[in-house]
């Protein structure tokens, strides 16, 4: 009986999207793909199931309710495409004009979308490179609402999230920027915090000391803002060289793990005494510093890619920052990391996908696959037993089984 009930629950969960990857860094916004059906042995080559020219950009695909979504650019249009997981065939496509003049310094990034969409409650939310925030019906693609907040820096890169009916996005620029919550259904503004401009980093929603809060790197700070009302709970001044705050924070118990280029990775303990919030540096590990790569947490292991030593993988204890191991240097320019079942998947910008065993003793690589002919800055996305790879212009599904 009990077995049956479990099975029943499992089926329900599957139907409800246990395999979904509905937002930046997956179901829990932490780069962990618990539902990955890992192959028994990693083959010499991956099988390419399909590859579709979808348009320009480094926005990662998302998967929800049996559809894949990708947000891209073609010419002066930004495009949202829903595709069939089995074949990559287009189910629906929507586009809108998004004229954009790229900052000359970022010209070579192209004008493609950088922010990753979020799907929740039958809606998909996208944030384009020029600051256009849109909502579409996830099934049909019918546009629901749209707002234009204008461009930022080298292109809007922060990814929106959905929390209990609110769409939360860091919009605007340094002079007129705000972490803002919108009614997901209507786009009506519910709250906003204007204390700092946006960064390239994406927010998370976490519960600390019983308070649900949006935590993110803003342009010059790390902030915790009440998810209900948008008031600032705490902030830590955090300024990286050329104001490039990029990394998505990770929460381990009550310790936030943060880093930025040039700065050591650190654990910040956040606590509340009555109405008073305090933050305190619990640990710093000067051996590692994160630039564009966000770390992943597996239980008591934090795995990441540091910019030191010309690019180095590392594993540390999130409780106290103790180094467990560090790989040789010169591994890659950057790495987009996903923890999938018992392995870590690392996609580097030169289109190498490396599979490493989750191991607290050593960096144990199993395989490296070449998965594209153009730069791969988007994150790899787990879908069942497959891996979605977005390169500069194509979306492909690779099968390791």
């Amino acid at each position, binding site marked *: 009986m009990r077995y049956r009930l479990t099975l029943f629950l499992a089926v329900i969960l599957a139907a409800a999207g246990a395999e979904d990857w509905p937002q930046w860094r997956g179901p829990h916004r932490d780069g962990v793909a618990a539902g990955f059906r890992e192959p028994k042995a990693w083959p010499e080559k991956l099988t390419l199931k399909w590859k579709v020219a979808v348009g320009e950009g480094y926005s990662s695909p998302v998967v929800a309710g049996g559809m894949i979504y990708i947000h891209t650019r073609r010419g002066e249009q930004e495009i949202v495409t829903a595709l069939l997981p089995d074949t990559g065939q287009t189910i629906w496509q929507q586009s809108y004009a998004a004229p954009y003049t790229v900052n*000359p*310094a*970022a*010209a*070579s*990034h192209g004008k493609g979308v950088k922010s990753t969409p979020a799907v929740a409650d039958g809606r998909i939310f996208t944030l384009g490179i020029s600051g256009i925030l849109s909502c579409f019906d996830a099934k049909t693609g019918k546009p629901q609402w749209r707002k234009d907040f204008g461009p930022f820096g080298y292109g809007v890169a922060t990814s929106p999230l959905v929390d209990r009916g609110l769409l939360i996005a860091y919009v605007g620029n340094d002079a007129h920027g705000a972490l803002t919550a919108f009614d997901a259904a209507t786009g009506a503004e519910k709250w906003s915090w204007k204390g700092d401009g946006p960064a390239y980093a994406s927010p998370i929603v976490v519960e600390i000391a019983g308070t649900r809060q949006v935590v993110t790197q803003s342009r010059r700070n790390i902030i915790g803002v009440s998810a209900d009302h948008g008031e600032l709970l705490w902030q830590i001044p955090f300024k990286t060289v050329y104001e490039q705050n990029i990394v998505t924070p990770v929460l381990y118990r009550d310790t936030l793990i943060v880093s930025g280029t040039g700065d050591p990775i650190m654990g910040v303990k956040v606590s509340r005494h009555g109405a008073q919030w305090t933050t305190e540096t619990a640990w710093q590990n000067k051996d590692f510093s994160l630039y564009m790569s966000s770390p992943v947490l597996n239980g008591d292991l934090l795995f990441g890619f540091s*910019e030191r030593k*010309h*690019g180095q993988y590392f594993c540390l204890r999130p409780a106290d920052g103790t180094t467990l191991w560090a790989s040789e240097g*010169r*591994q*890659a*320019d*950057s790495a987009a990391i996903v923890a999938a079942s018992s392995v870590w998947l690392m996609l580097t910008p*030169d289109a190498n996908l490396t599979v490493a065993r989750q191991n607290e003793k050593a960096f144990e690589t199993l395989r490296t696959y070449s998965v594209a002919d*153009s*730069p791969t800055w988007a994150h790899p996305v787990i879908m069942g037993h497959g891996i979605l790879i977005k390169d500069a212009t194509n979306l492909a599904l690779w099968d390791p089984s």
Partner: protein
Amino acid sequence: MKHGMGWFAALLACATLHGATLEWPQFAGPHRNFTSDATGLANSWPPAGPKKLWSRDLGEGYSGIAVDGAVLYTMYRRGSDEVTMAASTATGKTIWEHAEDAGFRSGMAMENGPGPHATPLVTGDSVFAVGILARLLCLDKKTGKVTWSHDLWREFHGTPMDRGYSGSPIAWKGTVIMKVGGAGHALMAFDQKDGKVVWQKQDFANSPSSPVPINVDGQDQLVAAMGDEIAGINPDTGDLLWKHPHATSWNLNIALPLWTAGNLLFVSSAYNGGCVALQLHVTNGKTQVRELWQTHRMRVHIGNLLRIGDTLYGSSGDFGPAPLTAIDVKTGNVLWQDRSFPKATFLYADGKLIAVDEDGNLSLATVSPAGLKVLSRVALLHSNAWTAPALAGTALYVRDRHSLMALDLR
């Protein structure tokens, strides 16, 4: 007898030197393509490395070594001064020095090294040197006395470079041509004798790379990788012959454009620039530019491209692994990548690659479309060793940010 032998040796040395192309008078060598006609280089080195002829302290800088007979020229930083220096190739001892104030201007970001970056040019009786503040000096090569100078930024409003000016001068007939950047004077030619402006043309923004003279189907051209494009100009007049887009983030085309057999021009850059292969032809005085391929998998940062046979080599990558990468010149396809040494600058002589990687290793290797074979390797220098090696005859000159040394590669 002893005297006689010495005389004979000197004669031999002269004969070798007047084999003409064994000098290294400028950045990237006599052919401005990182190749040398030297022969007789050893196929392997002892574990401690090739025989050290001498070694001396030298200040900060990535400026390369120009060799002219018995004298070498380079630049280094001393406090807030930049020093242009002549030294004996036989002993390394200083012959003369000339110092110029080079205090950083506000907005300059020199955390990757304070410079100087450019390599002096020796031609005729003069040495042309340019420091991080874009002050171009013409010095008497015997005495180091300044014949004339120009401030390319203050006099001509050249493109400000927040990491310092770095384009190495090039001689053209009686002129020296400089990349300056900015409306109406992106490229400028100065009379070598008196520094008078011979021409100033074009509107491009400047970039750190150095210009290179080429000959396309009998027509002389000067190629310069500018801020966002590659330009071909008439080196006598500065008139534009052609241009082709090649953008990077932050206008950072740094590596030297490489002109090779079959009228193929390669330009590669980091900062998302990638590599482009152009085939140039001149018909009825007009240059046809055909883009053969582009690849993002060859992104040369501060190093160089080298073509051997039908393979293009370069350390590809920005600040990460930067593996040595081999590319088929016909297709642009990657043949192999090898991590035996990290980001390197190299030259090619006597069938061998001589590489200085940024960690300070000096390597001797052979390369082919099939792969890299490291013959010898020795840790000689300190990080960041970003200066390209220079080879005059069989003497190799290498430096880092602390020292300069000469090695006998026989």
